[in-house]
């Protein structure tokens, strides 16, 4: 084997090793390092006890209400299977709203309420001008376009994330 071929094999093995490392890191990321937990996982007790973690899901429509102090808000977060009530004192992000995706960081109290230290909003994956989005919505509501309008269903889309 010529020196050049040896080096080729050497670099090939290095790339292969890097590939194996990448796949292992990815599987580790998927199983161990959950960025947030879904309400179902919280109900199943998969979240860390006595530690700060994140809950992600959708804000349930008609559950958003303000407490007497005017700053504390309460709302329910769902993954369309289970619900976790959240309490948060502070300023909500611009994109926060009922039916929208949120990620809240905090700890769960003994009363089952998740006391958030901060609440982040997720934005949906579609980048459409309003008129296009509206057309898609109407078409979807009429049952005309079922498959061509995935962006018209942000609610069900975001749950899968």
């Amino acid at each position, binding site marked *: 084997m010529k020196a050049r071929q040896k080096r080729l094999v050497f670099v090939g093995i290095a790339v292969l090793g890097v590939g194996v490392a990448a796949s292992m890191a990815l599987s580790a990321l998927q199983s161990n390092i959950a960025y947030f937990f879904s309400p179902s996982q919280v109900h199943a007790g998969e979240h860390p006890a006595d530690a700060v973690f994140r809950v992600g899901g959708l804000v349930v429509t008609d559950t958003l209400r303000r407490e007497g102090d005017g700053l504390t808000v309460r709302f329910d977060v769902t993954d369309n299977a289970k619900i976790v009530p959240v309490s948060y004192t502070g300023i909500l992000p611009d994109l926060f709203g009922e039916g929208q995706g949120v990620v809240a960081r905090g700890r769960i109290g003994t009363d089952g309420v998740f006391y958030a230290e*901060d609440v982040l909003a997720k934005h949906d*994956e579609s980048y459409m001008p309003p008129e296009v989005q509206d057309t898609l919505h109407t078409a979807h509501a009429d049952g005309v376009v079922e498959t061509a309008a995935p962006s018209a269903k942000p609610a069900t889309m975001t749950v899968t*994330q």
Partner: protein
Amino acid sequence: MKINWFKYASPASFYPLAGQLVPKFAAVAAVLVLIGLYVGFFHTADQLGGSNPQKEYYRIIFVHVPTAWMSMWLYLVLAGWSAIGLVFNTRLSFMMANAVAPTGAIFTFLALWTGALWGRPSWGTYWDWDPRLTSELILFFLYIGYMALHSAIDDSRRADRAAALLAIVGVVMLPIIYWSINCPDPNNCAALHQRSDPGSIHASILIPMLLITLGFWSYSFATAFMRLRDIILTREADSAWVRDMLLEARADTGGGSGTSSGVPAGAGRGAV
């Protein structure tokens, strides 16, 4: 006709070619970026659709996404030239990798910053340890590490090999960055970023985004070739062709463009 592919593997013959290409790539970059920004800022909706839409600030997408794409692509280029250099022992490949690294680092830095500026109004935070943000930050450290390691070793050939190895090992981050959002099972990749695809981006937004990406790509060629010419001159300072060229440039009192003319190895015009 047999094309001699290895002709331009020689720094002496690539130096003038790079000199000719720099202004062309720079011009293409300026035109594409200006058109892209103009279309993006003046011919797109002021806010997105939906019940709770993103306002004007979504337009940072025209800078953010192209810089993020380039940060990953240029790392692949960096690692690719490093691998070719290690295998074939070609000096120019290592120089190419060296020349690309700062541009890649700049794009990574810009992707992180524009992301922060976009994240504040939309998500409600400048920074969060979301998998995509974290892996992109590590990519930035890899670029910095590559450049630091290379400049820490005095012998340039040893520096080339050590830094090339680091670059290849760092490729591990690229699939992690990619799959931090696009993983096969969406339930497993919870992130602040939302997975998107060209189908859910309207043409009026997608086209300027792609134009600017091509512009940034062209910019990367221009800056990398400029840097490459400096690296070639520094490293080949003792070689005959550089000395001849400098002498000729000195003799040629009036001529400002003494770089591409009169280089012994041939200027290679029209040979591309």
